[in-house]
């Protein structure tokens, strides 16, 4: 074995035996450093004859390359060993809870309002809104409820104190004044829904002094009671997410519609839970009718040419029915336990493609 071979053997052994990065570095310096054994060999090439250099050059360079490669390889191994040792030491209790984060919720009324909007938007209805404090004129008179009409007794109206103009306005008792506002500001054809807060002086398990209504209004030259039935049917089927529902139409009376219709939906209340489309009970859904010719007239629309329907539902009530909330009052009491129980996740935005609910 030549001296060169034994030198290489020696260095490679030292590399293998280096226990940590510092020891490896010592080996590297002693071999490849400025004064290192291999560096000295390479320097000696300069003093050789060309023939000798041609012979020894590749030999010495080969030694240097192999040593350098061995050092690099050993370095990787050592780094890996060191990391393994550190990781073996680093442990956490993964069963501890994460940093606290509160989970937000959407109120069921907002959620149901978004559901209703999604359905009606598909049918081409825009969303109209109006003020909570309303002129008596819009809340009653323009809807064919003149002062001292007995129908006013059906609305337990809240009055706001007299304003500087001497007028006494009301908290709207229904969303219908927005009908009047829409008809006065838009030309037919009209398709809108009007969701919003409404107010009546009434309070028990199923009545709160504030509640939410949504109504749909269609005005054009041809819409009739058959279309009304279709819209109510399609809406209920989509909203309650049941393939088949069965409706019952009952004649009724609202001063602003003629003919007037109330809708009931077949349901089954046996077994503590309500099921739709089956059973022997009827559930009251809401009122509707063909917009009264006098209302059209008072809102600047020619009743000999235009007609249409209006129908209204209670949003809170729809939420109670669909999601099984038995009592209306907690809707407006902001009890965190209730909000978390009945609330919806932020990303549960109802869509027709994904389904209105999960």
């Amino acid at each position, binding site marked *: 074995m030549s001296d060169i071979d034994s030198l290489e053997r020696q260095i490679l052994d030292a590399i293998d035996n280096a226990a940590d990065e510092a020891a490896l570095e010592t080996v590297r310096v002693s071999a490849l450093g400025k004064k290192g054994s291999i560096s000295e060999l390479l320097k000696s090439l300069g003093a050789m004859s060309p023939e000798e250099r041609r012979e020894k050059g590749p030999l010495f360079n080969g030694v240097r390359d192999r040593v350098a490669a061995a050092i690099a390889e050993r370095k990787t191994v050592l780094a890996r060993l060191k990391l393994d040792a550190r990781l073996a030491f680093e442990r956490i209790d993964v069963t501890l809870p994460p940093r606290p984060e509160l989970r*937000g919720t959407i109120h069921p009324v907002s959620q149901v309002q978004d559901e209703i909007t999604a359905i009606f*938007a598909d049918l081409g209805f825009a969303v109209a809104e109006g003020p*909570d404090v309303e002129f008596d004129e819009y809340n009653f008179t323009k809807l064919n409820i003149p002062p*001292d009409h007995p129908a006013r007794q059906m609305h337990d109206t809240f009055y*706001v104190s007299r304003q500087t103009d001497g007028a006494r306005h009301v908290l709207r008792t229904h969303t219908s004044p927005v009908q009047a506002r829409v008809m006065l500001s838009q030309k037919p054809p009209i398709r809108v829904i009007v969701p919003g807060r409404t107010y009546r002086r009434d309070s028990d398990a199923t009545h709160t002094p504030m509640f939410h209504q949504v109504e749909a209004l269609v005005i054009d030259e041809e819409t009739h009671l058959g279309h009304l039935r279709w819209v109510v049917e399609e809406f209920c089927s989509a909203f309650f997410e049941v393939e088949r529902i069965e409706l019952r139409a009952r004649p009724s009376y609202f001063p602003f519609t003629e*003919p007037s219709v109330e809708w009931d939906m077949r349901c089954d209340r046996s077994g503590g839970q309500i099921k739709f489309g089956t059973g022997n009970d009827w559930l009251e859904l809401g009122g509707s009718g063909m917009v009264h010719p006098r209302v059209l007239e008072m809102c600047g629309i020619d009743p000999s040419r235009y007609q249409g329907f209006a129908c209204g539902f209670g949003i809170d009530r729809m939420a109670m029915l669909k999601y099984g909330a038995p009592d209306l009052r907690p809707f407006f009491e902001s009890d965190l336990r209730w909000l978390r129980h009945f609330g919806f996740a*932020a990303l549960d935005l109802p869509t027709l493609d994904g389904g209105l609910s999960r």
Partner: protein
Amino acid sequence: MKFTLSWLKEHLETDADARTIAETLTNIGLEVESLEDRGAALKDFIVAHVVSAEKHPNADKLKLCRVDTGSDIVQVVCGAPNAHTGMKGVFARPALVIPSSGETLKISSIRGVESRGMLCSERELLLSDEREGVIELDPAAEPGTPAARALGLDDPVFDVAITPNRGDCTSVVGIARDLAAAGLGRLKSTEVAVVKGGVPSPLGITLNFPPDAQDACPIFAGRFIRNVRNGPSPGWLQKQLRAVGLRPISALVDVTNFIANDRGRPLHVFDAHKLAGGMQARLARDGEIVTALDGKTYALDPETIVIADDKRALSIAGVMGGGDTGCTETTRNVFIESAWFDPQRIAATGRKLGIQSDARYRFERGTDPEFVVPGLELATRLILEFCGGEAAESVVAGSPPPWRREIAFSARHVRRLAGIDLTLSDISKILVSLGFAVEGDPEMRVTPPSWRGDIAGSADLVEEVVRIHGLDRIPAAPMARTHAVARAVLTPPQKRTRLARRTLAARGFNETISYSFIPRAHAALFGGGGELRQLENPIAADMDALRPSVLPSLLAALARNAARGFAEQMLFEIGAQFESGMPGAQTLAAGGVRLGSAARSWTKDTHNADAFDVKADMLAVLESAMGGTMTAPVKAGAPGWYHPGRSGTLALGSKVLARFGELHPEILAAFDVKVPASAFEVFLDAIPEPKAKGRTRGLFQPSQFPAVERDFAFVVDANVTADDIIRSACNVERSLIERVDVFDIYEGAGVPEGKKSLAISVRLQPRDRTLTDAEIEAVAQKIVSAVMKATGGTLRT
């Protein structure tokens, strides 16, 4: 409106059972609220005659009865002390279910003696809590007949909700007419025969109205009857009145109640002895006083109609009779009043005086103007029958108000509104059965009957036709789609509201919805509480003020939840806040509150919810609503409900977009919130609409050249804001300086008293070259001098 099946059958010839009648009523718009048929539950219980009741051979307190059921004699063991020979009782055969227990009765052996049935107590039939003895029926009851009949429970009671347009259905006859039209039987004749008077009326009637109030009472009819005896009314009448919830009083009063319910015609009977001279209908004098039947005294105004004698107003016409001219047991001579009053005037009077009465209920819905006189005749006939006496001739002042009007109508109207094709004869048949007069073909002229004052136009006639034809027979008709693929419908503000809501929920906030009215004291803490935002008739004393902000609602909720043990809360509401009580004087606010610190988390990296938490919330709402970065500056300070030193306002010009900060300790104390809480308000209506820009994004041009970050620390006066420093640094070379961030603030050792050290990191991003050291140094120098100039500070070394 309540009535019994037997009462209905006085006017309607029908074989239909109560359930069918109830369903039909609901289907034609007379909604049945309840059908009380207590007899139905007892239909298999029968009358039995106790032939003998002797002591049980093996028990002292039991009796051994032989009971005649009408078809056989059975042996029954009975424990009731009142069971005795000869009585009639209610008998249950074996296999019947006993209502009180729900159990099936079995043949049993009691103390060694077989018992094949049971005599029932009221308790067992759920008629009352009486359990001491068995029911003892009228001795005339026939064994084997239904016990319900003997108990007077075989007459189902209907309660129908009458809509305000159907004054005619505040009477049994009106309901019978609708049922007959719906094909449920035949309406019996409603003719009333005239009673001839013996002598001229000793009392005259005048209508005494000014020219502009002639329509207040167009007709007033009256009749004087002498020598009546006012005792109890006959049993059948008392039974009917009781069944519909009216208390029998005396024959004279019961007659008026009967006719009101039977015919929808309110009447009043005066004790003629208490009248002074002739009768008149007139407007009240201002402040004129009437003591009414309810014992209360009412001061009237000149809009009110009164019935008066020569001396004074006696009753509030159409609303309530007078207290001291009514009939008593000793009444001998009576005067019956039958009149027609303007419905609006009656409604107004009733509302102003706060009187709900059966008379008002009917008059304000409109009574049949042609039944004023027949109603009087019917009352006369019944009074003569029940009380005897001699009737004078009727006196009538005025005449029925004009009610005849023709409405042009055709099958086309039905098709147009209802979407169904009915023949002229179908339509005509329905209308005629409801009392309408129909002429013409195919263009009809329809005259509504006198009792249907609610029918004004063709739409009303369509309703009459379809409700009798059957609303459920109108098939669903799809509406045309306006677009094959539905278009977006939400307006920009509606989209903003939805984004704000879902952004906050995603950040961990729970959405609340609370009442728009709050306690006035709370409103006052948030700039409200003034007269203009008060409710005149709040439902509760602490719900009397329109809220000037959503924060008081949220704080009240925060406190309630905190009291339940929720130490950490994030609540928000998006809702109206009110500037006054004028329509439209409201803005849509998204408000949120944060409370607590998660201080009990093992992680320890917690802090009390502070202004910077809610500032982030506020910016998140604004930026999601706008769909971009909010660059408007935040200025220190916010209204008084915030901590004066720890709150800020974000405005565009004079328009306040949002505010945030810690809440003022006094506000927290007022709501009983015991730890610091922070809040924000974003005024969604104030957010500017995005400029219409098209949907394509700008060019994506990342710089090819390295960015450079340089840090600077300045020592400045403590009142210099971060914004002052950031803005002056940014403005040095806007094209080069990509961003400036604050990364440290320090006050204390090494920094002079009243000063602070604020360190910023500036990122330089060249777009066309790599910066040289010299260029970087030059920009750095400019930044330092700009900040120093703007703030009077120095570079910290």
